[in-house]
């Protein structure tokens, strides 16, 4: 067992939580992520494999929601799979072992920061951040979008007032700043 300590994306000892008005923005540090892309000719096999793994294959614009994460569609024959970090530290290796030569698997855990945004004013806040049709999104909808010039994913979670935003980890501070600004605007 190695002895290096992980660092949260915003740099704090604990994940940062901000409550502004009715909105709470919570850094979610415990997410293991890996991308799965079907190899040429193995698209059906990978889709089937994902169904076996997740219960269904995420369709374009959709996520399969487990707690805390499962997977969402990222592009043609390409998905992001998520799992609890403390039990799936080696998620990419696990997935590679499962899919073998049918899929290309790439570790993505360190590439992303995740923020859970909850609260009654979440839709108002979301409208100031990105072009996703937040009021039309239902549980499990997942959209790729831009927030403060950053390529992000917005996933509508099970609760009506809950979205998860995945953004580039190196810009976690800028993304968080944009979220806080938007929350203050609608507070």
């Amino acid at each position, binding site marked *: 067992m*190695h*002895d290096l300590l992980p660092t949260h994306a915003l740099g704090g000892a604990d994940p940062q939580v901000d409550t502004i008005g009715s909105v709470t923005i919570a850094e979610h540090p415990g997410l293991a992520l890996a991308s799965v892309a079907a190899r040429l000719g193995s698209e059906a096999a990978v889709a089937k494999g994902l169904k076996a793994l997740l219960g269904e294959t995420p369709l374009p614009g959709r996520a399969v929601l487990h707690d805390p994460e499962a997977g969402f569609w990222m592009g043609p024959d390409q998905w992001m799979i998520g799992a609890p970090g403390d039990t799936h530290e080696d998620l990419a290796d696990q997935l590679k072992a499962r899919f073998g030569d049918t899929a290309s698997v790439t570790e993505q*855990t*360190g*590439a992303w920061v995740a923020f859970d945004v909850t609260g009654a004013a979440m839709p108002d806040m979301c409208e100031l951040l990105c072009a996703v049709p937040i*009021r039309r999104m239902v549980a499990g909808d997942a959209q790729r979008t831009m927030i403060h010039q950053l390529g992000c994913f917005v996933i509508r979670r099970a609760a009506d007032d809950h979205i998860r935003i995945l953004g580039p980890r190196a*810009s976690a501070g800028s993304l968080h700043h944009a979220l806080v600004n938007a929350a*203050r605007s609608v507070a």
Partner: protein
Amino acid sequence: MTKDNRIAGGQIDRAKTLRFSFDGKSYTGHPGDTLASALLANGVRLMGRSFKYHRPRGPLTAGSEEPNALVELRGGARKEPNTRATTAELFDGLLAHSQNRMGSLKFDLLAINDRLSTFLTAGFYYKTFMWPAPLWEKLYEPIIRRAAGLGSLSLKDDPDVYDKGFLHCDLLIIGAGPAGLMAALTAGRSGADVILADEDFRMGGRLNSETLTIGDDTGADWAAAAVAELATLPNVRLMPRTTVIGAFDHGIYGAVERVSDHVHTPDDGKPRQILWRIYTQKTVLAAGALERPIAFDNNDRPGVMLGSALRTYANRFGVAVDRRVAIFTNNDDGHRTAADLHAKGLKISAVVDTRPDAPRNTDYEVLPGAQVIDTKGRLGLTFAEVRMADGTTRTLECGALGLSGGWNPNVHLTCHQRGRPTWNDALAAFVPGENLPAGMTVSGAAAGDMSTAGALRGGAQAAKAALGLKGRLPALPDTEDAPVNVTPFWYVEGCIRAWLDQQNDVTVKDVKLSHQEGFRSVEHLKRYTTLGMATDQGKTSNMGGLAIMAELAGKAIPEVGTTIFRPPYTPVAIGAFGGRHRGQDFHPKRLTPSHAWAEEQGAVFVEVGNWLRAQWFPRPGETHWRESVDREVLATRGSVGVCDVTTLGKVDVQGADAADFLNKIYCNGFAKLAVGKTRYGLMLREDGIAMDDGTAARLAEDHFVVTTTTANALPVYRHMEFVRQCLFPDMDVQLISTTEAWAQYAVAGPNSRKVLEKIVDQDISNEAFPFMACANITVCGGLRARLFRISFSGELAYEIAVPTTYGDALMRRIMQAGEEFDITPYGTEALGVMRIEKGHAAGNELNGTTTAQNLGMGRMVSKKKDSIGSTLSERPGLNADGDLRQVGIKPVNPADKVPAGAHLMNANGPVDAAHDQGYATSACYSPVLGCHIALGFLKNGSDRVGEQMRLVSPLTGVTTKVEIVSAHFVDPEGERLRA
């Protein structure tokens, strides 16, 4: 002493009093007032000076089309010039100042311009200030700008914030007058997602300004009830104070919501305005119509305004502009104004109607077939001169004169996709053409349906059609349904100083002069005279200009056409376009995994794209950046240094055809690269020019990690995706960026292995892990990591990568492990020095003009395979004798500098472009060599090593004697990096 022009009625809250000041004088008004209505209520008609002639001006309108009543609102950093008093919502403590004057508003010294008007006609500047040309910028323009202009900026940072936002709906309704409200009720009741936007702070449009009834209610009460019902519908979003400024592609509309303009200071954290992007399936444009004036001599005195504006001030704001009013009209609407004002108890001096068959009235005098030909009054209207039908003249005493020249449907937004309006003879106006923005329908007065009944019917029909609703129209209440009865009349024959465009001081005479001088196109007329320019974009003036143009050219108005309508509909603050992207937030920052640690070390950071990279790490006592950089270079070459290289692009390339794919994108071969090996690769553009360089490490038969330069991380990834998806879709290859997923550090220097041996969990001896080796390894007792034995510095070096979440910890561990070797963190400056010393090309050399040949890598372009750019790299023009080759440059005198960008010239001979031999691309001080050095490109450079030349910088006037040397200043044989 102020005059009280308040009269009964209106939709203002008289129970509350608001205090405000104009030009330092205090006044009072009420909630519901605009600045203009409150000033008029206080007897203030004079609100500004005109653009060029500094003539006294008051409001012409009561809306956003206002050309005259432009003021500076607020003070200090919040000062906002050119704000329309007619739309500025009154709030307690509002400060307003008049603008564009020298002296007071009443005694403007620049009013002398009006006396010189004979000389200041259209085109005056172009004709007069032609010579001498240098004086234009230094003398003429400053004087003209001082004399003619509008408000002034505070030149301070705007303290407020602006947001941008995104909305989606089934139906966007623009305008909340009778048509818009009826459309919203129809659509909202059906359950559709509706946005109703109106620029006014009170929805209702003209219903708030008229005395007509709808059913049993006044129009204003009906509108209020409609708004109240809409507010209860969760699927309807009401957006007052929101101007839809443009119709863009694919059903996207821009809208500015003035969130805090009506309060003294925005609440903490709240935006002043929001620039919305509205995505809609369908749009109903119900923007109403704008009344137009009639031109006659001195038609611009304060007190002369549109008849509809007089009605608005009286009916909505409870304000009589003056107690004695005359009307000048060519249509029945002017009589509506007279009737309303008469009913309010105002004295109607007369209704001057150009039509001989004008309707008579028993309550006030009507002068059929007559025309107002002139006015009097120094700072405001006192008399109007009338030419009667029989040719005699008569003087009317009046402080307000209402002009009713007919109504122009508000077609602006119908034309933003290059649509053209069409002429309607019955209205004597342009109406929306057939070529509308996709999904748009127009209803109400905007469509030329000028009655209230027509607006209600049209709004309901438009909503039903837009949403595909079946069934009959909802029951519509009874209301006025008067036909339009207008006889076109644009200007009074023989007038000279008759204002068409009051904002730009363009007169009938100017338009005639423009025609006389050959400007026959309506677009040329606009540019020559400035008719229709500036903040109001000619909303009250364009039609008059077109009509005169048509008359002069002997054409019909539709043959003359209109100028192009472009967004924005009304002016938008630059701050709204900028949104949150200003100052520190102009773009997002990307922080490296070691950023916090580097900050603790006192690093100086440099922006590289969005990344912040440590540029150098100053130590106590170091007073100049060069001291730090020199130390970092020497320490690295002498022992060991560490540098965060996470920013280099990393692309994960997997698939059965991954090697073949790299063979396509790199000009050199990769198919035979062994697993566990890394290779330098050069990428060419299609045209054979070098695009980027980097490395590709083969972690498995079907798995590579490609690195790119920091600057090109995105373009290269985009290029690779293009190649994958479009050029070779049959290849089994998958790409994904992992730049941010891995924290990567370069550990360089003769002791680098010793440091890393304390961290990594396996043998990394030269035998076990030779130069250019790569592997998936573990560190610190089991953390997955990647190790690459590659070197940018030319030293024994490694790049070690761990998942980003452990990046901070790894950097601290490396520093701890290297303590016994005096490990030194180094920044991008030292990195740059070492790569120049080693002769490695970087962005300065891969500058979009250079080839593999130029870079001395011509032999890397494999002839055994086809790769992108390889064929065109063989073009004769790129392979001529004497081509540029990368060389090293050293000063003959070691104390001399060698500036980058300077050009190489022969030791003797002319210094000019014709004799140019090449140029220096990258330069630095080499602490190893003890002198400045540079890389550069030199014609036939590889054959000129040892030659003495001049390095010339005409820009700075520096000429340095230099010697051409190998580009590899340090360890040319590469022994160190293989150690």
